[in-house]
Each structure stands twice: as structure tokens, then as C-alpha cells.
């Protein structure tokens, strides 16, 4: 302890050893300050922060130079989220005691972390803004703002209290209680917190009793010596009731599944199937188109092949005709009239060129007469010898070259050869032809008779 006048160190005497000032009352003031400081420290140690603040302020009222009290007060303010108030106390403390002061350490801590200080400053500004919203009756905005503030600075006791007050006003007592519990964790004996908590509890009780009154109608009656009190609308919680409820629940579930879920699943399955069918149809259609085009191509190619075959056949036939014409010419030169005539019979005049046709006509003119004569003679001789097969062979060739040869004799004997060989059916057309060509002859009557 130092003298308040001269600053000299005091002893146990009632006056200053240096300046002689009476210090009895001064000592009492200092002792009172220290007593309040001790009380404040005790309260701070059990987290009664608001109580500690009262005690420490009282301590400082007695002795403003009580550095420990001031530093502790700053610490308590800091713990309650009031950082600037804490800074104020520490600055004043450092001012009164520049050396060997714990406040220097606290101030250095804050100065080193300027970002955090700025963040805390922002939360304080938001809190002040929220308070302004409350005064402007914008409670919703205030609640939103306070929630933001408390998420950034959860130690701000006044923030929790203001939020609780807003919730109580909105009759959201549960939320108010939650906010007040958070405030209570920081400052356990805060009067405002406790008062609001009591209000919230009363409010909750009222809300619950109102709900209870609507449904809680009791009926009491005597049963022998006992008084039975039961709710008016007694719920049957027996097993039967439970089973019935379960069955109803199952039925409802099945109905919901049947009417809502299954049609949807079926519809989607059908859509998938339709889509698959459509895709398949598209594929089939495209395949059909390609098949049709390929078939058309095949047809065209087959036609081309046929044409080429025909052309080939024509060429073959043409070549054959020329071969036969050549053969006929050679045979004629060799005097083999029969062979020449046979060869000429196989020539197709349509395939011959003009020059070749002339040759054909020349040879034909020469060969025909002799050939026909030979054919007729051979045929007649064979007929006469009853060699009808040979007769038919020779006479048929003759008739094919000249149907009227020998005034129809070749035709007549041919028919006769067929008839006599037993083939009347083959003979009949030749008989008919003979009647048509030579009607007024003696043989025509005979032929007519056989032709019928």
C-alpha cells in the first residue's frame, strides 16, 4: 500500500511515515476495495459473471487504482463478449500502472490478432443493428440478425438475452429457453437470464395446460369402495385394437401401392415395351425396305441373266444354224442329199444374214426336190413293207418340208402309217389335214371316215 498523497510505502501505523498524512480512513477504503475484489473473484470463479461485475465495479469505486480488480473486470467483460469494454478497462489499468501489469499481456494478445478483433467488431455492429430492428418493431429481421451474430460470437450474453426476449414475445418459449440456456452457460446467475427463463417456463406451462384442457376431460365414478377416475374418451390400447390398426394400415398400404405405385410401374413397363416394339418395327421396316430393294436388284439381275441367256441361246442357235447350213452345203457337194436335207431342216432362217439366206435358198432349192423324193420313196417303201415306224419317220420329214407333196400322198400315207401302227389318235390330225387340203378326192372320204 502506498500513500495517496506522496506515494510513499505505508506501514501499519495510522499516518504516513513520509508526509504524516492520516491514513486510517484511507486504509479502510482500500480494505473495502480489496474485499469487493475478493468477492468479485469468487463470483467469477463460479461463472457468476454479472455478480462479479457488480463486485468489481464496487471495488473500483472504492479504489480506482486497484489494478487487479480492473484487469479482472476486463477479463469478465471479454468472457461475456463485450471486447471493447474489456479493452477500455485494460487501457485504463495500464495507464495507472504501466509496469508489471497483466493488462499489457491482454492488450498484446488482442493487438496481435487484429483480424479476430475486426470480426468481433463486426458482430457487435450487427448486434446494435438487431437492437435497432427491435426498436423499429421488425422482430423477424432482428431474430435473423441475432442468429448471425451469435453464430459468430457465441459468448455475447446480451445477444442471447435479446433473442430470448424476442422469442418470448413471439410465444416461442422452447426456443427462448434454448437461448437462455446458452446465456446461462456463460453467466450462470444473470438476473435477466433467470427472469426470462422463469417467464418462458410459465409460458410453456400455460401452452401445455391449454392443450391438455382440450383433451383432458375426466370422468370419475364409484366402484364399490374405490373411486375410479378415467378420461372421458378412453382410448382402447388393447392387443385387438393394435391388430385392427395394423390390418387397417396394411390395407391402406396395399391400396396405395395398388392405385398409385403399380399403375405407374405398369405404365412405365408398357412404355418401355411400346418403345421396344417401335424400335423393332423400325428395324423391321428398314430391313424390309432393304430386302425389297435387294429383291428388285435380284429381279433385275435375273432379268439381265435371262436376257443374256436368251441372247446366248440366240447366239448359240445362230451359230448352230450357220453350222447346219455349212453342213448342208458340204453334204450337197458330196452328193449326200439326205444329210444335206436333214441339215437344212435344222437351220433357222431367221438367224441367217441376207447372204447366208441366199445360200440357204440355193441349197434348199437343189436339195429339197431330191430330198423330198428320197424321203417319200423311203417312206412309201417302208409303208409297203409294213415298217410303219420307219415310214412315219421318213414321211413326217417329207410332210414337214412340203405338206402337199405328191398331191398329198405323203400326208395320206403318213396318217395311214400312224393308224396301222395303232396310233389312231396321232393319225387323226393328218387325216383331217388331208380332208381340208384335198376334199374332193377319193381318199378324202376314207380320210374323213378315219378322222371321226
Amino acid at each position, binding site marked *: 500500500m502506498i500513500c*495517496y498523497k506522496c506515494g510513499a510505502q505505508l506501514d501499519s501505523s495510522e499516518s504516513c511515515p513520509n508526509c504524516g498524512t492520516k491514513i486510517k*480512513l*484511507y486504509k479502510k*477504503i482500500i480494505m*473495502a*476495495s480489496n474485499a469487493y475484489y475478493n468477492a468479485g473473484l469468487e463470483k467469477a470463479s463460479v461463472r457468476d459473471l454479472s455478480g462479479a461485475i457488480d463486485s468489481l465495479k464496487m471495488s*473500483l*469505486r*472504492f*479504489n*480506482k*487504482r486497484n489494478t487487479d480488480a480492473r484487469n479482472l473486470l476486463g477479463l469478465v467483460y471479454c468472457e461475456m463478449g*463485450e471486447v*471493447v*469494454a474489456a*479493452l*477500455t478497462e485494460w*487501457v*485504463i489499468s495500464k495507464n495507472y500502472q504501466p509496469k508489471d501489469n497483466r493488462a499489457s499481456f491482454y492488450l498484446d494478445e488482442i493487438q496481435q490478432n487484429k483480424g479476430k*478483433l*475486426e470480426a468481433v*467488431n463486426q458482430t*457487435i*455492429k450487427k*448486434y*446494435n443493428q438487431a*437492437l435497432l430492428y*427491435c*426498436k423499429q418493431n421488425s422482430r423477424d429481421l432482428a431474430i435473423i440478425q441475432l442468429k448471425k451474430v451469435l453464430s459468430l460470437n457465441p459468448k*455475447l450474453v*446480451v445477444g442471447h*438475452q*435479446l433473442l430470448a*426476449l424476442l422469442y*418470448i*414475445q413471439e410465444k416461442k418459449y422452447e426456443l427462448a429457453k434454448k437461448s437462455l440456456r446458452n446465456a446461462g452457460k456463460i453467466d450462470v446467475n444473470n438476473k*435477466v437470464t433467470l*427472469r*426470462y427463463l*422463469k*417467464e418462458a417456463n*410459465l409460458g410453456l406451462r400455460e401452452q401445455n395446460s391449454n392443450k391438455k384442457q382440450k383433451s383432458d376431460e375426466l370422468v370419475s365414478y364409484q366402484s364399490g369402495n374405490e373411486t375410479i377416475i378415467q378420461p372421458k374418451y378412453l382410448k382402447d390400447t388393447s392387443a385387438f385394437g393394435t391388430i385392427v390398426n395394423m390390418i387397417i394400415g396394411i390395407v391402406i398400404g396395399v391400396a396405395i401401392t395398388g392405385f398409385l405405385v403399380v399403375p405407374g410401374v405398369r405404365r412405365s413397363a408398357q412404355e418401355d415395351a411400346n418403345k421396344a416394339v417401335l424400335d423393332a418395327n423400325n428395324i423391321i421396316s428398314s430391313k424390309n425396305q432393304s430386302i425389297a430393294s435387294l429383291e428388285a436388284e435380284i429381279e433385275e439381275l435375273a432379268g439381265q441373266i435371262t436376257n443374256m441367256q436368251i441372247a446366248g441361246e440366240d447366239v448359240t442357235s445362230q451359230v448352230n444354224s450357220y453350222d447346219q447350213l455349212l453342213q448342208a452345203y458340204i453334204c450337197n457337194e458330196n452328193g449326200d442329199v439326205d444329210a444335206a436335207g436333214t441339215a437344212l431342216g435344222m437351220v433357222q432362217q431367221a438367224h441367217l444374214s441376207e447372204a447366208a439366206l441366199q445360200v440357204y435358198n440355193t441349197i434348199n432349192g437343189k436339195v429339197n426336190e431330191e430330198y423330198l423324193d428320197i424321203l417319200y420313196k423311203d417312206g412309201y417303201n417302208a409303208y409297203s413293207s409294213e415298217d410303219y415306224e420307219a415310214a412315219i419317220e421318213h414321211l413326217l420329214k417329207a410332210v414337214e418340208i412340203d405338206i402337199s407333196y405328191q398331191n398329198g400322198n405323203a400326208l395320206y400315207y403318213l396318217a395311214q402309217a400312224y393308224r396301222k401302227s395303232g396310233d389312231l389318235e396321232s393319225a387323226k390330225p393328218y387325216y383331217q389335214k388331208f380332208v381340208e387340203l384335198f376334199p374332193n378326192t377319193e381318199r378324202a372320204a376314207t380320210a374323213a371316215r378315219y378322222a371321226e
Partner: protein
Amino acid sequence: MLWSVALNNFCIDKGDYRIMINFEEELKNFKPSLEVEEAEQAIYNHELVDMTDMMQEMLHEIKQGI
């Protein structure tokens, strides 16, 4: 229960035992918190008169009176 009833006997309005919070009145108790920019002013405005100062002034007045 008995404590609450006894306490309420000290209330001015005995008709209602329930403590009602008046929102507007409570709101008045909430003061804006100090911001960093206001710290300097707060330090200057801080009350720094303690009992020792008052005692010194009293003694001074007494001496002057004498």
C-alpha cells in the same frame, strides 16, 4: 410453491401472481454495445472518481471551512 406465494405478497399488484415481461420496457434495458471505434471516447468518458478522491475533496472542503 410457498416461496413464490410469499414472494408475490411483496408485489404491488397482488391480483396476478404471474410475472409479466413487458417487451418495450425490457427493450429499454438493452443498450447498444461498444464498438472499437467508440473505445477512445469510452475511455475518455470513463468515471474515474473513487472514494479516495471523494475523501480528499471532503477533507479539502473541511480544511477550507475551518
